[in-house]
């Protein structure tokens, strides 16, 4: 068992507890929006629920899962203790206090601003303080990842950092860059407004700052899934990583191109000048590259596994893969959903064409498919993979894990494919109610019902997931693997472990490139607000 297993479990259970609660809220929201009458339905309850669902899924599930998994990787991939464990615990408790503040303010109706909290709507100051604490908690984690990797490099001069840790640290670096935008927004605009120190805000500027964070945060969520694709799935399938260097290039490409692209969320905003939007549109095209590289490398790695297991012919290796392994199954399902999610994203980023889908259900469908589907299913698979290491017990029932993964993928398809369709036909976002008697809307009813069924499947699947994990803890003592000590965590080995270019064994060059690109992409849009000094909007407090 890792030394920090309690710390890791604390993080992961916090993440999954938030996930479970948010999942039920999600189903209720679908019920409210469906043609059927839902209990407890009111405007206020609906938007409290949407705020809680988005914040829990987007900020709590992700951040705490990534931190917990990061500590696991830091210990098992580097095979050395994580530095400053007490600091790690302090960070965890800071994050918990933050979550409590967010939950308290949202549930009491003092922060009904949705998880994107666009001003001038302004929540209780404690909502923002809570978010700041979660971010600070994650910064502690980032620092520990960087220190851990640095210490390992000093202890192992000339060797390349294990890929899983390199990728985890890449994510920490990405996250430090990513949070700059939202931290600036909260500290310089939202907190002063919420505490009553300012009465007006530059709304365009806050949108620009939030967009800095809004896209890269998605790669922060996604990188653990990619770590599993590269370093865990091929190992589980019995293969090799096709190319260690390609993997590193992909992670670095996320770091470089994931950041200077956030303005593509503001294509339909009136305030950024066309040039700012167009620059980031071109860079957004390039951020597809790491995913396309990943598809190749991971498929090639899996092909090696399939052929080693006796698969023949052009596609025979696919059937030869051990699909009974949850991690392999999840990788397959994740890739399947990635195609839909990727295609959806392609339309979103298409500059003027974005007008067709902006703020429609298409967008909601896109991020549910790609995050809730492709990424979260890998969170599940990672949990199934590492829980035996964390608890020292074998999985009580792998078949239930497979059922859970299948039902999640199916539920997510049933939930989000109708949204894609309706979004394409103009179903708008973030509303509690549709008038199904309107001729434009009436044909939506069966599709909304299908989505509701998808949501119910997801809740059932999520409950099975929690149960699958809980069984590790309540399993009979006899199931403990004390007799045969648990194998240490193994990550996939590269087919041809060669020397890694020094640039791909650290982050100096990449940080410089990020700085240059972010300056090019964001200096002018931010400066623009100060140059033209647009009229500010009156702060609109929703907490009284």
């Amino acid at each position, binding site marked *: 068992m890792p030394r920090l297993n309690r710390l890791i479990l604390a993080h992961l259970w916090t993440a999954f507890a938030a996930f479970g609660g948010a999942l039920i809220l999600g189903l209720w929201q679908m019920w409210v929006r469906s043609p059927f009458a839902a209990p407890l339905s009111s405007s206020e309850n609906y938007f409290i629920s949407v705020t809680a669902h988005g914040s829990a899924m987007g900020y709590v599930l992700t951040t705490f899962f990534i931190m917990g998994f990061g500590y696991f990787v830091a210990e098992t991939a580097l095979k050395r203790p994580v530095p400053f464990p007490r600091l790690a615990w302090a960070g965890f408790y800071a994050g918990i206090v933050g979550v409590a503040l967010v939950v308290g303010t949202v549930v009491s109706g003092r922060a009904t601003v949705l998880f994107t909290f666009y001003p001038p709507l302004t929540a209780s100051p404690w909502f923002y303080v809570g978010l700041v604490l979660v971010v600070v908690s994650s910064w502690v984690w980032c620092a520990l990842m960087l220190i851990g990797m640095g210490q390992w490099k000093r202890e192992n001069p000339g060797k390349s950092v294990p890929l899983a840790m390199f990728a985890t640290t890449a994510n920490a670096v990405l996250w430090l860059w990513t949070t700059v935008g939202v931290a600036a927004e909260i500290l310089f605009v939202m907190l002063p407004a919420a505490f009553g120190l300012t009465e007006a805000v530059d709304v365009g500027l806050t949108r620009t700052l939030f967009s800095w964070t809004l896209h890269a945060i998605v790669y922060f969520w996604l990188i653990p899934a990619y770590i599993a694709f590269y370093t865990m799935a091929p190992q589980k399938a019995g293969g090799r990583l096709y190319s260690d260097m390609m993997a590193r290039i992909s992670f670095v490409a996320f770091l470089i191109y994931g950041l200077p692209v956030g303005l593509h969320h503001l294509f339909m905003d*009136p305030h950024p000048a066309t040039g700012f939007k167009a620059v980031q549109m071109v860079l957004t*095209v390039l951020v597809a590259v790491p995913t*396309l*590289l990943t598809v190749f490398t991971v498929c090639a790695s899996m092909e090696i596994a399939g052929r080693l297991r006796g698969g023949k012919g052009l596609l025979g290796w696919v059937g030869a893969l051990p699909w009974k392994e949850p991690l392999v199954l999840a990788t397959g399902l994740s890739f399947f959903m990635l195609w839909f999610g990727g295609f959806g994203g392609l339309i979103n980023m298409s500059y003027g064409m974005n007008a067709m889908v902006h*703020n429609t259900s298409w967008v909601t469908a896109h991020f549910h498919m790609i995050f809730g589907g492709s990424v979260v299913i890998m969170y599940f698979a990672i949990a199934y993979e590492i829980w035996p290491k964390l608890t020292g017990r074998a999985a009580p029932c792998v078949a239930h894990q497979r059922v859970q993964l299948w039902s999640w993928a199916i539920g997510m398809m049933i939930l989000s494919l109708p949204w894609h369709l309706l979004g394409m036909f103009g179903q708008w976002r973030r509303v509690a109610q549709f008038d199904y008697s309107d001729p*434009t809307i009436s044909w939506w009813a069966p599709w909304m019902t299908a989505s509701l069924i998808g949501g119910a499947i997801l809740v059932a699947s999520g409950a099975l997931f929690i149960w699958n994990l809980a069984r590790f803890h309540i399993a009979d003592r006899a199931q403990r693997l004390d007799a045969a000590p648990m194998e240490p965590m193994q990550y996939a080995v590269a087919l041809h472990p060669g020397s890694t270019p020094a640039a791909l064994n650290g982050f100096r060059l990449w940080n410089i490139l990020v700085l240059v690109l972010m300056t090019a992409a964001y200096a002018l849009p931010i400066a623009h607000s100060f140059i033209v000094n647009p009229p500010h*909007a009156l702060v609109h407090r929703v907490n009284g």
Partner: protein
Amino acid sequence: MAIDEISVAKSERRWATAMAGVSAVMLGAILYATLGLHLNPPSNVELIDPATIHVSGEFAEENLGTRLEPTGGIVTRLVTTQFSFSPACVVVPQDTPVTIRVVSPDVIHGIMVVGTNVNTMVIPGYVSRVRTRFTEVGEMLMPCHEFCGLGHSQMIAKVRVVPVSEFKPDADGRAHCAAP
């Protein structure tokens, strides 16, 4: 293993080239839509003080709605506010260039006309402008598509597209939705 290092590198290079090609095609398609089809995001960057738009100027109540401008163009002016559009219904002629100008006095809103490419955020402090042409006669929904408060779900207006022959502005050039 059957695959040696050089083959690995070669296969990766081939794939990378193919993916560079895919990216180029994607970029080409977007550029074609922008430069050839004139599908551009609304980015006019025009400032307006949200605190006083109701008091005087272009978006005072008397100016809202559709108007045949003295210069000949058709402009539809709208205010999006918590939680309604003002006016709640606008009339526009079919197959005629229309400029929609919309502002918010309070919080962020967004508008779209369902079934068309009319779509823009409305950010307090700026005028949002969309140029369009409505091709089909009929009544279309124009909802707010960005969360603006607890009444967001019911913030819906209508666009009534009428044949040019039925579009009859008054002496001042203003056209109103007739009572349904």
